[in-house]
């Protein structure tokens, strides 16, 4: 029998077997976590649990609580299931052979989408880890940075896994766990049975696993690959870290120098190339560019890197013909970049782990030979060794002398445009984002490029217009030419990604968030691309409105392009970059999503909630009391679908923009009219209490940028709002509704707990409406009696005890999070 292990939690001596079902040999670590991260007051009141390396089912109580309030809503459902050899089954006629019904199939497909998204990151993280294991000993210490303590050093990893990561070996352990979980989820996404909610619970788990994989990647980037990290900086001066001085965009590339571009998720070839450039003193001689995640990563270890655009823009960028060499790795979206490179006569190096087309694997060939082949006329090679790929890229760039970029001439473009069928609108009709292509063609036939400048901005380069064109106009070439014309002005200054956030830094603003003077902590993820102007508008509005804004992924460089004419500054130059009001923090590439808006970091000191293997109290707490919202905007790959699930499980609302929502078929939406859904358990009695239908949705689509802001204002109204924060949150919602729709939101009165929480400027009017439209008893700016939703008239103290949570009382949606003395006796 194993020795009993005791951890000292304050004055308590706790047998670790009370906390961990199966310690799996991690006893020492669990004792360390308990003694450093558990708080006695909380433990004696609530007990504690570390769900070490959990399966989805181990933490599903939280998922089911969330999904019962925010059930899945599927759009454009699939009716036929072809997942197994027994089928196909037409579920529109009833259940399939495995018992699956139509709604459950949508859940299964939703899980598949989340798994695909999670997998792209998992593979990228594994790539980084395997390379690290090759270069450094397993015992090499890792961290997100030196100034973080045990609790905040890697919450994206620890909150799910319960592991305190200290070495590369630990990272391997957690990533192996993540891979195992992903395999289980993938299996369920093809052969799982059950209800839609069962599957959606696993979708949320896929999100958590994605976050873990992102955390692993970030820790490796910082510890092994020399990425800058805000957690290696003193807090003094952090508001300007890193400085907003990085020049990016087409016009930042110094002319006359060879240009190497890196595209995709894998920055390792770029990292090796930069290392080589430094050794060979080539940094002044070669320009290094990046597209997509790699671009965002390069600028965290190389301050001369240039971000050109998001991954989805890569085909257009490559056809632009400015790159001498393009190093292509698998990315978040599948793109035929090798063909584009060939067309533009750029030399291509494919560094994927799987082959592409008929490219032979040149990994084992000597560098000189590969360089000779490319310089001698071969168009592309496949090299699986990042070091070799990096060296080859540099040498080829120095040897290849390219002519002028092959851009369609103005005369040719006009000639083609003149040849189009004048009464044809097919190109416009097939455009998935509705761009006015045919009008642009007509304008160009008269020599006017204006229309194509507009089309270019919104174009995702899918090529549907070209395929549809009966006159064979080379529309994409013309679009690239339009981009080329504007490239001379495409230069912006940005702040590279900074990595993690510390509890100490975040707590500087804890009050401002709690009291509402920071109305929301908002993170903007997404590709931007065609929608970058909207993203920039949203970011600017939020910053002007006093929010704390985070960006991660390609959205970071996209908002950076926004230029304020009056101030003559780009967006990152206008604002500081710490966790405070009117600050914008660029966390980094996609994997840095795991750092963004860590409301849970605030709950660690303020609520004593441990951050190891402890998702349910965090998700529960933030869903009831966190002013944290995510906005996803632009054409989004599946990775964002899983990322949305991750943050939803941590209690945030996810607002999905119009382009993204085209590809999404599942939302998690609440129903404010269904009163049975809006309850919490009172922390002192355990009884259920009806509450306001606030934080109305979990994953919700919007159609316009204005709607995004009003939805955001709705999303930060929460059950645990203090007086002051409820007032601010209501005020923001009303301001936006008045400004954009010239009316009050129809349901504002459902969020009223006291006249004290009505914005002073609107208070008299709102109080009079409470009386005239809702039957409350009022006098001037005061409410004397309220009418409960069940129709009863109540004094304000009765109302406070019957609707919404009383101020300053703990509450929860989960029975397991009631104080121990109430847990077994609380009624259902």
């Amino acid at each position: 029998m194993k020795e009993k292990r005791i951890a000292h939690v304050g004055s308590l001596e706790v047998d670790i077997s009370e906390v961990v079902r199966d310690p799996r040999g991690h006893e020492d670590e669990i004792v360390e976590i308990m003694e450093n991260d558990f708080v006695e007051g909380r433990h004696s009141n609530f007990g504690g649990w570390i769900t070490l390396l959990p399966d989805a089912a181990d933490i599903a109580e939280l998922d089911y609580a969330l999904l019962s309030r925010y059930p899945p809503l599927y759009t454009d459902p699939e009716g036929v299931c072809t997942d197994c050899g027994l089928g196909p089954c037409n579920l529109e006629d009833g259940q399939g052979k495995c018992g699956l019904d139509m709604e459950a199939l949508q859940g299964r497909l939703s899980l598949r989408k989340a798994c695909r998204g999670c997998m792209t990151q998992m593979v990228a993280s594994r790539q980084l880890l395997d390379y690290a294991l090759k270069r450094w000993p397993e015992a090499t210490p890792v961290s997100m940075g030196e100034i973080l303590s045990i609790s905040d050093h890697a919450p994206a990893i620890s909150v799910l896994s319960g592991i305190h990561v200290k070495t590369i070996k630990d990272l391997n352990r957690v990533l192996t766990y993540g891979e195992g979980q992903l395999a289980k989820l993938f299996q369920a996404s093809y052969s799982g049975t059950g209800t839609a909610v069962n599957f959606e619970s696993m979708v949320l788990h896929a999100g958590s696993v994605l976050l873990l994989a992102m955390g692993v990647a970030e820790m490796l980037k910082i510890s092994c690959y020399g990425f800058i990290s805000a957690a290696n900086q003193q807090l003094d001066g952090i508001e300007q870290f890193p400085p907003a001085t990085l020049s990016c965009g087409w016009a930042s590339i110094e002319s006359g120098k060879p240009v190497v571009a890196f595209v995709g998720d894998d920055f390792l070839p770029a990292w090796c190339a930069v290392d080589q450039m430094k050794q060979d003193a080539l940094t002044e001689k070669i320009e290094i560019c990046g597209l997509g995640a790699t671009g965002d990563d390069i600028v965290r270890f190389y301050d001369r890197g240039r971000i050109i655009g998001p991954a989805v823009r890569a085909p257009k960028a490559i056809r632009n013909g400015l790159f001498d060499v393009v190093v292509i790795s698998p990315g978040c979206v599948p793109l035929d970049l090798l063909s584009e490179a060939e067309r533009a006569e750029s030399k291509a190096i494919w560094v994927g782990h799987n082959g592409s087309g008929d490219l032979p694997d040149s990994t084992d060939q000597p560098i000189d030979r590969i360089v000779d082949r490319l310089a001698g006329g071969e168009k592309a090679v496949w090299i699986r060794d990042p070091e070799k790929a990096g060296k080859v890229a540099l040498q080829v760039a120095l040897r290849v002398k390219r002519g002028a970029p092959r851009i369609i001439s103005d005369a040719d473009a006009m000639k083609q445009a003149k040849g189009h069928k004048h009464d044809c609108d097919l190109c416009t009709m097939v455009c998935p984002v509705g761009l006015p292509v045919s009008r642009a063609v007509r304008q160009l036939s008269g020599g006017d490029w204006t229309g194509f400048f507009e089309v270019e901005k919104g174009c995702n380069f899918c090529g549907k217009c070209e395929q549809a064109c009966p006159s064979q106009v080379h529309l994409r070439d013309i679009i690239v030419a339009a981009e080329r014309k504007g490239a001379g002005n495409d230069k912006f200054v940005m702040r590279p990604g900074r990595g993690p956030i510390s509890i100490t830094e975040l707590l500087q603003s804890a009050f401002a968030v709690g009291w509402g003077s920071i109305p929301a902590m908002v993170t903007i993820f997404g590709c931007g691309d065609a929608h970058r102007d909207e993203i920039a508008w949203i970011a600017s509005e939020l910053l002007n409105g006093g929010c704390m804004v985070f960006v991660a992924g390609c959205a970071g460089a996209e908002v950076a392009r926004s230029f304020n004419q009056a101030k003559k500054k780009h967006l990152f130059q206008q604002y500081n970059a710490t966790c405070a009001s009117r600050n914008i923090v660029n966390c980094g590439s996609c994997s840095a999503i795991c750092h963004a808006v860590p409301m849970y970091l605030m709950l660690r000191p303020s609520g004593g909630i441990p951050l190891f293997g402890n998702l349910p109290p965090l998700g529960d707490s933030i869903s009831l009391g966190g002013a944290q919202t995510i906005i996803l905007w632009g054409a989004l790959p599946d990775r964002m679908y899983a990322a949305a699930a991750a943050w939803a499980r941590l209690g945030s609302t996810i607002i999905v923009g119009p382009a993204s929502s085209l590809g999404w078929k599942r939302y998690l939406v609440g129903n404010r009219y269904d009163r049975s859904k809006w309850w919490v358990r009172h922390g002192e009695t355990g009884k259920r209490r009806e509450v306001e239908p606030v934080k109305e949705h979990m994953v919700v689509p919007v159609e316009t940028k204005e709607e995004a802001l009003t939805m955001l204002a709705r999303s930060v109204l929460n059950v645990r709002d203090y007086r002051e924060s409820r007032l601010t949150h209501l005020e923001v919602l009303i301001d936006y509704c008045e400004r954009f729709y010239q009316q009050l939101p129809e349901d504002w009165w459902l969020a009223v707990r006291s006249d004290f929480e009505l914005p002073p400027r609107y208070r008299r009017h709102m109080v009079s409406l409470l009386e005239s439209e809702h039957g409350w008893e009022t006098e001037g700016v005061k409410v004397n009696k309220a009418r409960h939703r069940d129709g009863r008239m109540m004094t304000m103290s009765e109302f406070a005890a019957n609707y919404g949570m009383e101020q300053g009382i703990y509450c929860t949606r989960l029975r397991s999070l009631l104080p121990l003395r109430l847990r077994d006796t609380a009624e259902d």
Partner: protein
Amino acid sequence: MTVGEVAGVKIPPGREYQLPTDPDHLWDGLKDIGLGIRWVAEVKKSDMQIELSGPKWEYKSYTILEIIEEPGKVRNGIVTLIGPDIHEVEPGSSFPSAWDIKVYGQGITQRHREYIERQMAMSLHGVEGYMAFGSFQSPWMRISKSVAGRLTFAKLCQVIHAYVKTVVPQVEAMEFRWIIASPEVGGLALIEPLYKVGIQRLKAQELSVSLEDEDVDIFYGCTICKSLAPNHVCVITPSQIPYCGILSYNGAQVTVELDPEGYIFPMRKGECKDQTMGSYTGVDEAVYERSNHQIKHANVFSAIKYPTTNCGCFEGAAFYIPEVDGLGLAIRRYIGVTPLGVKFSRLAGMISGGSQNHGNKGISVRSIQSKTFLKGDGGWNRIVWMPADMKKELAEYIPEEVYDKIATEQDTVDPVELKKFLKEKKHPIVEKYWKDGEPQPLKVPLPGGDWPRE
């Protein structure tokens, strides 16, 4: 007598404006200005249209809110502006200023002044393009060029007028006089004598409502953080404000009066069991009831023995250093190591979440200025270490004879070195608490535990 009369200064005539006083029209005409606390922002020097007071004028300016208890003495909604308006000055101008605000309302007394001041500050901070630093005694205001065409001094007064009358409906009349002391108006020569009288009035107002713990029968409790730290109860007495520093005893009292369903509640003081420690029967009862029956006894003036519980929002913390039997202090923005060998963030994590952590107590910066600060542990005679910045900031509240004897991180963070330092500097702790030049460390019970009976 008016401030001008007392100061013997002739104040030039100004322009008068009548603000809307009909309750349905208090906010009329303000739609073109962003209002709400989220508009709190910084106005940089390069962006400012006008600056009032501040370091350039050695803070020789004031804002005074006077509660007039006699009816008919306050001209309702009148603003008298003496000097130029916002749009009438050269961008970037800076002048001293004197702002007198009078308030009348049936039942509104000196006790309400702090609460109304807070509402005034809330309303002003939330005006687009307006920035304020400092206290009423040393104000520093800036107004941005971006609102120069839209915002006027009368509109700023209107915001306060409308806001205060809405949130404190008992207020019936408010009158404003604002002197913008451009050189034409009289500059600093006009303001300085007014300032001297004004400051005396402000101090007299403070004194008129200042209370000692002995003067009251009711303390207040705050459980706002309980929604996160379920066992936590904050105790507010005249001398002890909450750790988060957001309000005082008077503020708590008026808040309960106006908002009885809020998160602040009256707490019977009960019988005083120990004046030095700040031990009261009423406090013990209330804390027990509201801490899920977890905390049986709490001393208001001690960090070492049965301190009150800690939420997570404290501005700073006091912590026991056994090696020297003394207390250290640290505030959140200090990111170095403390003599406990941990940083503030770790310390905060260990002691928060609503536990009673003997030897550790959350503190607010303002409570450090109180006479009863850690009185139960020996007050400043027991404090041996604090961060240098914090020490400098609080210099005027630290007894002169101890000031140089308190170590900072610039002296040492090592307990052994600290012991040497205290001996060398002859810190009072050596004489009063140590025995034969050696500290006598207490055996501090674990959190939630009991001290042995003495």
